């Protein structure tokens, strides 16, 4: 394989359901997650949090807490760097409140003590005097003229004049003439939708162990999706030189986007610097809900026009996203993803980023896209129903494909939406009979995917095995897929590769494990690092044989002369070459550093059958099928796992999960009992179909798969509920009270 070649067939290891290399550690309890590390002399920390949604911090009195035996140090905002601006200042404000507490749960101080119990007791003794301010938590109310201002001057120049100060960013895109488009339609449906904030709900709370000396050299262990990002942000928050802080990523107990930010890590470092001791800081579940990053909540208006034959003539969407007390709600993605599955001549999308007294939203699997799909795909479903058209036929008729113009502008490259729709249409699920009280829904979904800065090193050992160092934390089995790709290139057994997640001191920069980028970008880098090593191996063989480097090829783990003209030599296996590498030019290491820009987008189509109990309003998902384009599945078992996990999270979002704020602006459901994520008895088996339309931007055709799977479920289930119960739910979650209210409303108003 030449360095940039594409390989599409004859895979030996890629495509196999190999066992993950970290499997034994993870089933025996040996794997070390964020909270599992210890250090000699370690202190435990606890954070003091605001009970108010919006309040000026008048005074913090730590004297009683300090007097408690076992307390070693307390930090407040005064212990962090000053002079930060822009995004860094927002991160610091969120990590530790400055003049104002901006949401229920906002950190205002932190304590380190000799035990966890003492630290918690001491946190209660810290006396904070607050001047309570008016608050707002709802997106529409936060935009209203009388809403309290979260932060004056937070808006950027994109915001049109006359908007409330809580509207901080504005997006508008599209093409064609939507009014003309609507005029062409035989039917126009217009509706408004709302979705509540949900949480990623990773089972492992944020945890870290920090050591920072007076010399400003530090070590940090934490569960994160991206330790280089943690390094950069923590260095800024504490006024350190980036390279002086070494960050090691622990095993990570789920992230889904929520562990791309920092929350407690700078606090633990500040406490460690203050006490000169290692400090461990672990969040409680309720802290995770109150003070990490849930999704944005949304309020959306959709208008779509359709001809009798199913052609969509125009689409328009307005998306208002509440992203907490800081700018950054992903409204531009909501807007850009909304109509992405469809080839529209006339389309317009508008987005507003709105601040409110809630925690700063964080990414959650395809940030912003699932909500858009919920609203748009619900309206398309209504149109199909009213015009008596098959929902898959209509989607096929309008589907985006290579060469059509995307709703956000560019012309599509090779994409696989049509293939997912066709696979869904021919899947037995789509034609299976339904029982009384059940309804079927379908929906499409879209996510961009991402490449990002990536560094990988592959070092050969003297026995011909290989150590692969990647910088993207393994959230769902990526060590296996990396080793598969390396084994494929080197032509050695999969088991002969050891994949390690390297710390920040041992590799170049690696962007966070997000944007479904790991198998794509770290995978691409692994393939290229392996090819770089193979090139050296071939050169060593050439030198030994006294022939030209180009006359050597690499096959099945051996160097061979490329043909009869190259000479007659016995193949040289990898271990023969590595055993002598010290004396033939030195260690053999392949590496690759780049920002690959060819992440292929991924589309999905989901089919769901739901059963609604009209007495209780309870909805049960009885059958579920995910069809998604993976480009090329390196390890099908883990690809299926991503499909199933995304679908399950989408089911939770659709039916149960929501942030519930009281009139007082406090979060009312900050435990798993009240914020109910799907449990095993809530779900059916989740069937999967992997469609493979290769991504031209990856040597094997890989597309990221981690995110798109959460885009269709919200709408697919809403469409199924509408078919099962005869009512259209326009607010998420479709919890029993909302379903009952909708049924009652329909009975009253016909």
């Amino acid at each position: 394989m030449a360095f940039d070649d594409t390989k599409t067939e004859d895979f030996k290891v890629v495509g196999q359901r190999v066992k993950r290399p970290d499997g034994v550690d993870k089933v025996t309890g040996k794997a070390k997650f964020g909270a599992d590390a210890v250090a000699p002399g370690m202190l435990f920390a606890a954070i003091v949090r605001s009970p108010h949604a919006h309040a000026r911090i008048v005074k913090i009195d730590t004297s009683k807490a300090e007097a408690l035996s076992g307390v070693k140090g307390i930090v407040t905002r005064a212990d962090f760097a000053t002079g930060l601006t822009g995004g860094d200042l927002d991160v610091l404000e969120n990590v530790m409140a400055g003049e104002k507490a901006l949401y229920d749960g906002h950190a205002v101080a932190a304590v380190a003590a000799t035990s966890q119990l003492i630290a918690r007791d001491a946190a209660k003794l810290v006396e904070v005097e607050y001047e309570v301010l008016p608050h707002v938590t709802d997106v529409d109310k936060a935009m209203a003229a009388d809403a309290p201002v979260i932060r004056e001057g937070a808006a950027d120049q994109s915001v049109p004049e006359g908007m409330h100060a809580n509207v901080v960013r504005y997006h508008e895109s599209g093409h064609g003439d939507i009014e003309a488009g609507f005029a062409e339609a035989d039917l126009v449906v217009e509706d408004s939708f709302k979705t509540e904030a949900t949480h990623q709900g990773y089972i492992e709370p944020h945890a870290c162990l920090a050591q920072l000396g007076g010399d400003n050299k530090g070590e940090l262990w934490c569960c994160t999706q991206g330790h280089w990002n943690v390094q950069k942000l923590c260095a800024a928050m504490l006024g350190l030189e980036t390279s002086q802080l070494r960050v090691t990523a622990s095993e990570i107990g789920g992230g889904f986007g929520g562990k791309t930010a920092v929350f407690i890590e700078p606090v633990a470092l500040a406490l460690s610097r203050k006490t000169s001791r290692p400090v461990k800081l672990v969040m409680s579940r309720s802290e995770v809900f109150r003070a990490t990053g849930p999704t944005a909540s949304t309020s959306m208006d959709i208008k779509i026009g359709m001809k009798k034959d199913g052609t969509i003539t125009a689409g328009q969407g307005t998306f208002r996203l509440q992203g907490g007390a800081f700018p950054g709600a992903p409204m531009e993605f909501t807007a850009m993803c909304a109509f992405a599955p469809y080839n529209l001549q006339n389309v317009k999308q508008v987005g507003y980023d709105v601040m409110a007294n809630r925690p700063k939203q964080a990414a959650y699997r395809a940030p912003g896209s699932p909500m858009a799909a919920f609203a748009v795909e619900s309206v398309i479903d209504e149109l199909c129903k009213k015009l008596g058209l098959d929902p898959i036929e209509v989607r096929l008729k309008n589907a985006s494909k290579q060469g059509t113009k995307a709703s956000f502008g560019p012309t599509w490259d090779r994409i696989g939406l049509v293939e997912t729709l066709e696979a869904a249409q021919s899947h037995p699920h789509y034609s299976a009979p339904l029982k009384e009280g059940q309804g079927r829904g379908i929906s499409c979904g879209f996510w961009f995917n991402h490449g990002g800065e990536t560094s990988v090193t592959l070092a050969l050992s003297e026995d011909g095995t290989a150590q692969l160092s990647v910088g993207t934390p393994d959230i769902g089995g990526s060590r296996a897929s990396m080793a598969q790709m390396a084994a494929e290139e080197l032509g050695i057994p999969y088991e002969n590769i050891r994949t390690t997640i390297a710390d920040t001191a041992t590799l170049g920069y690696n962007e966070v494990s997000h944007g479904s980028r790991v198998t794509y970008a770290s995978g691409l880098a692994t393939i290229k690092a392996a090819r770089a090593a193979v090139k050296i191996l071939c050169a060593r063989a050439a030198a030994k044989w006294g022939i030209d480097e180009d006359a050597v090829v690499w096959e099945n783990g051996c160097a061979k002369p490329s043909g009869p003209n190259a000479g007659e030599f016995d193949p040289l296996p990898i271990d023969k070459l590595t055993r002598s590498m010290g004396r033939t030019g030195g260690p053999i290491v392949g590496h690759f550093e780049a920002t690959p820009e060819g992440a292929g987008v991924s589309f999905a189509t989901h089919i769901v059958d739901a059963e609604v109990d009209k007495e209780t309003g309870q909805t049960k998902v009885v059958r579920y099928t995910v069809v998604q384009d993976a480009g090329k599945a390196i390890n099908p078992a883990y690809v299926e796992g991503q499909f199933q996990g995304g679908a399950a999270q989408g089911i939770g979002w659709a039916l149960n999960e929501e942030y519930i704020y009281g009139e007082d602006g406090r979060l009312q459901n900050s435990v798993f009992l009240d914020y109910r994520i799907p449990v095993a008895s809530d779900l059916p088996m989740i069937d999967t179909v992997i469609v493979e339309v290769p991504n031209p931007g990856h040597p094997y055709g890989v597309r990221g798969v981690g995110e798109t799977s959460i885009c269709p479920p919200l709408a697919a289930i809403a469409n199924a509920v509408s078919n099962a119960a005869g009512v259209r739910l326009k607010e998420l979650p479709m919890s029993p009270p909302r379903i009952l209210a909708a049924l009652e409303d329909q009975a009253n108003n016909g």
Partner: protein
Amino acid sequence: MIHVNTKINGDDVEFLCDPRETLLDALRDKLGLTGSKEGCGTGDCGACSVTMDGRLVCSCLVLGAEADGKEIGTVEGMAEGENLHILQEKFIEHAALQCGICTPGILVATKSLLEKHPEPTETQVRYWLAGNLCRCTGYDKIIRAVMETAADLRKAS
């Protein structure tokens, strides 16, 4: 501080703990048995599942002091030396874990299920595991791994 004498995975163990300290914290912080995880601390996620005198409990809801005179079983005690328990094997084989944080609790819980109900139906497995949250997998591959283990164990016996 309370002096506790207990047996963990067959070994005699003693430790001192605060009367407020949970068994989970004692296992993790006092004894270095960090295989049991804290996902919630309120009995809702099952990541801390252990057995106490053979009964499945959430160790975050049990006090360390309550372990006195009892026999505790944790995930660390499932494999025999190098030999994994068949459930552990099947979980790896079926890709029944993604991040793996729920896995120790789910393994302890399913082992106790199969001891009580060697022939569970899918519904039985789903309800038995309803107290063990997994956010990554959608449970599909977990349920399949458990069902196949049960079938294999029946064939073997």
